[in-house]
């Protein structure tokens, strides 16, 4: 198998130049998916039988929650790639992924609270999923805090990559423990079958929004990685040429 593409990734410059080509397409894709999904979901899909219109927050809440968790794995995997193969772009991606993931986790917690008020009558409950999300948020903050504490960039990247990996091993354990703790303390234990069902007329816009959020995540990640690349390579000739050329 040809691995040159993989090794090329080691060059931030190559990544920067290639991503400039992809970016416009990604912008268009993200914007069209998000617009289509939200217009369909907010205006055309029917109201829920029990919850009325308040369920529509699902179109932000669920995709954000998906990406919050997936983002942690993106962060940890790029951290691992950076540690093992010493690929600079991977280290920078890891650095870029942490704040995006933290924001998405916050968005899913916040929208969950807003949704909880009309449906459960309270902003916050110590539900298993909510509690796990909160802990995920703390894990993100920890990785960011650790990275910021180091003055030396290389050490910061490696150290936060290790923390991210340790977190990855822990996420399933934390999730399971919180789930068990919740069933011990809270009422909703009956789960003979746990699949929730959603009507197709509501599902399709949700799927579009999920894909749209994936695209948005990729876009944000690439944009932030590009910023990190420029910051890191600011003394190199090609960045200087880029700056002079665009000025």
């Amino acid at each position: 198998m040809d691995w040159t593409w993989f090794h090329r990734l080691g060059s931030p410059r190559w990544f920067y130049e290639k991503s400039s080509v992809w970016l416009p397409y990604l912008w268009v894709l993200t914007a069209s998916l998000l617009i289509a999904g939200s217009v369909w979901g907010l205006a055309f899909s029917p109201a829920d039988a029990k919850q009325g219109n308040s369920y529509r927050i699902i179109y932000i809440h669920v995709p954000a929650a998906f990406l919050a968790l997936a983002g942690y794995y993106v962060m940890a995997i790029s951290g691992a790639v950076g540690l093992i193969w010493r690929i600079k772009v991977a280290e920078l991606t890891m650095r870029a992924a942490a704040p995006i993931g933290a924001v998405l986790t916050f968005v899913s917690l916040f929208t969950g609270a807003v949704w909880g008020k009309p449906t459960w009558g309270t902003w916050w409950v110590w539900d298993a999923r909510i509690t796990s999300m909160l802990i995920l948020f703390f894990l993100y903050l920890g990785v960011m805090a650790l990275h910021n504490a180091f003055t030396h960039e290389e050490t910061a990247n490696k150290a936060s990559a290790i923390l991210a990996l340790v977190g990855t091993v822990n996420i399933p354990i934390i999730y399971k423990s919180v789930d068990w703790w919740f069933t011990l303390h809270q009422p909703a234990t009956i789960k003979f079958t746990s699949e929730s069902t959603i009507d197709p007329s509501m599902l399709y816009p949700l799927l579009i929004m999920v894909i749209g959020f994936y695209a948005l995540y990729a876009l944000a990640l690439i944009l932030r990685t590009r910023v990190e690349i420029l910051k890191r390579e600011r003394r190199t000739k090609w960045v200087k040429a880029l700056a002079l050329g665009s000025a």
Partner: protein
Amino acid sequence: MHPVRKQRLIFVVFVVVFATVAIGLMVFALRENMNLFYPPSKIAAGEAPVDKSIRAGGCVMPGTVKRSGENLDVNFLITDGSADVKVFYSGILPDLFAEGEAVVVNGKLSESGDFNATEVLAKHDENYMPPEVADAMAAAGNAGDGAQHQKTCEVISYDS
């Protein structure tokens, strides 16, 4: 043996031993009932402790809810399809409580096998559907009392 290889061997043995211990303890723990939750079949089988605060849950069997005319006393049967338990409760039932819906009850089991609940909680519904669909389902009459209820409770046959 070459010292480096010996070191590696000891390391591997170390990892294997602890991994085995971890898995063994996990398997042991999963066999223990830790969450104090007893479905009616376990209560009927006598596995639940008497006179200790435990939690039971199941579907409210349709036609068994009996309310007292004078006070808030109510009793009903909960079932998981294979056995049922009589629950006594005194208090206001939650809005979502209905026959054929899932409930969780906290309380103590009496000597006679009845459950004296101190709290009755209705299971949060996880289905999303537009009102037309809900109406259609109600019209089809497949759900008996409520337009939509917990799938788990739908699949149970209440004849037993």
